[in-house]
C-alpha cells in the first residue's frame, strides 16, 4: 500500500464519516408528524344554532338594555403536563400593542393565558395558553418539550377557583407562522378545548426566531 493510497483511503473514511454524521443530524431533526388535524377541525366547527324565524315558532329574545356587566371567567393559574414533566404558573396576558402579537410572558418558566378568550369555565371555544420553547438569555422554556406530547396524554389546568380540570391531548400540529390558521385556535365558538402553543421548526439565527408554531389541542377528559 502506497503512501498516496493511504491518504486517499483516509480521505474516503473522513468523507464517509462526514456523510454519516450529516445524515444522522438530518434524520434526528425530522419534526414529529402532525396528528389529530381532523379532530381539531371538527372541534372548531361551530355548534349549529337553529336558524331563527326560518324554523318557525322561535320567539325573539327581549332583554333589558342594561349596561354589560363583567362576565364570570375562571382564569387558569397553573398548568401541569406530567408526560413532559411540566408544572408552570399561568399568567393572564393580552396582545402586544406595538406588534399585535400574543404577549407570551417574558419569563420562560411561566406561560400565558389569552385573557380575551374563554377561561376554564367555558362551554364553547378555545382556551389558549402559550409559552416559550426557549430563549437566548434564559435557556429552555416551559414548553421546550411540548412537541413530544402524543394523542391521549393527560394534562391538568387549575383555575383561580382552585378546581383542577383534566384534559386529554387529541392533536399535535406544526405550522409555518405565516400559514397558521390562528382564528381557529383563538375561536370562541365550537366545542370547549384547550390549545397550547409554542415555537418550533427550523431556527433562523439571524432573526432569532423559529419558523413554525407547534400547536397542541386537548379536550376535557
Amino acid at each position, binding site marked *: 500500500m502506497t503512501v498516496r493510497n493511504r491518504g486517499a483511503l483516509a480521505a474516503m473514511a473522513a468523507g464517509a464519516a*462526514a456523510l454519516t454524521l450529516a445524515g444522522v443530524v438530518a434524520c434526528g431533526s425530522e419534526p414529529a408528524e402532525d396528528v389529530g388535524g381532523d379532530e381539531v377541525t371538527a372541534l372548531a366547527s361551530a355548534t349549529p344554532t337553529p336558524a331563527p324565524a326560518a324554523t318557525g315558532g322561535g320567539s325573539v329574545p327581549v332583554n333589558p338594555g342594561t349596561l354589560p356587566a363583567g362576565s364570570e371567567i375562571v382564569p387558569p393559574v397553573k398548568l401541569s403536563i406530567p408526560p413532559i414533566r411540566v408544572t408552570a404558573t399561568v399568567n393572564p396576558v393580552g396582545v402586544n400593542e406595538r406588534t399585535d402579537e400574543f404577549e407570551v410572558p417574558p419569563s420562560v418558566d411561566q406561560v400565558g393565558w389569552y385573557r380575551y378568550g374563554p377561561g376554564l369555565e367555558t362551554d364553547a371555544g378555545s382556551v389558549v395558553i402559550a409559552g416559550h420553547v426557549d430563549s437566548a438569555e434564559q435557556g429552555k422554556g416551559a414548553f421546550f418539550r411540548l412537541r413530544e406530547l402524543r394523542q391521549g396524554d393527560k394534562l391538568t389546568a387549575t383555575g383561580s377557583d382552585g378546581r383542577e380540570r383534566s384534559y386529554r391531548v387529541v392533536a399535535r400540529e406544526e405550522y409555518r407562522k405565516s400559514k397558521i390558521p390562528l382564528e381557529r385556535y383563538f375561536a370562541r365558538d365550537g366545542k370547549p378545548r384547550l390549545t397550547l402553543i409554542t415555537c418550533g421548526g427550523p431556527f433562523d439565527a439571524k432573526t432569532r426566531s423559529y419558523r413554525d408554531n407547534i400547536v397542541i389541542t386537548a379536550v376535557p377528559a
Partner: protein
Amino acid sequence: MQYAMFRRVAAGGAVAALTFAGVGAATMSPAYAASSKVSVVHGIPDTPVDVYVNGEKTLNNFKPGDVAGPLTLPEGEYDIALTKPGEAIDKAILKVDDAAVPGGANISLAAHLSADGNPQITPFVNDVSKVGAGKARLIVRHTAAAPAVDVRAGGKPVFEDLTNPKEAKADVAAGSVKADVVLAGTDTVAIGPADLNLKEGTATIVYAIGSAEAKNLSVVAQTITGLHSAPGGVPSGTGGQAGTGVDTWWYVLAGAGVLLLVGGGARVAATARAGRR
C-alpha cells in the same frame, strides 16, 4: 320583492312574549341569503308599546329600556307601527311605512324621542366589522330629547358635540372605563357616571334616551358579540435550542463528505491501475 310574512303564535301568557313565526320556511329561503339582523330598542320613557310589523303584532307590551332581537328579516320594506298595549293598530302612536331593510346588514331600530321631544323611529346600521385583538368597539347614539352632548371616558371627552339622532363610535382598548355624558362643551353632567365594561371583541352600543326637560335621561345598552380577531402571531422562542431544521453547515459537511469519498475513490482506483501496469 319578497315580503316577510309573520304570524303571531301563542303568547302563552308571558307578559313580554314576542313571537316571530316564519310562514312557510320554503317561501322565505330565496330571500334568506339577503336577510338582515334587526334589533329593536325602546327608548321612549314611560311608554310600553305593542310593535306591529306589516300589520302583524310582533312585540307584545315592549317595555322602555328593553332591547328585542335580533330578528332575521329578509331584505325588503316594512311597515312598523307602535300602539299602546292592547290598542288597535289604527290608533298607533307612531307609524313608519316602507322602512327599508337592506340585505346582509345588522340594524337597530330605535324608538325614541327627537331632540324636541316627539316620538320617532330611527334606523341605525351597526358596524359589525371585526375589531383588532385586544380591542372593543364603543358606539354612542344620541336618541334623547336633549341638546348636543359630549361623552367622557375617565374624565376626558371621547366624543364631542353629538346631536340627536347621530352616533359616534371608536375602537378602544378593551376593559372597564368610567363614562358620563355632559352637555356639549360643559362639565354639566347629564347622564352618569357609570362603569362601562367594554368586553374584547364586542360592540357596546349605548343609547342616551329620555328627556332633559322631564329629567328622565338615562341609557339603554345593546351588545353585539363575535367581532374578535386573533392576535397577529405567537412569538415564543428566541434560543434556537429546539430548532428542528437542518442547518446549512450540515449540508456543507455532507457535500464535503461526498467530495472526499469520490476524490479518494478515484485516487485509489488510479493508483491501482498504475500499479497493474
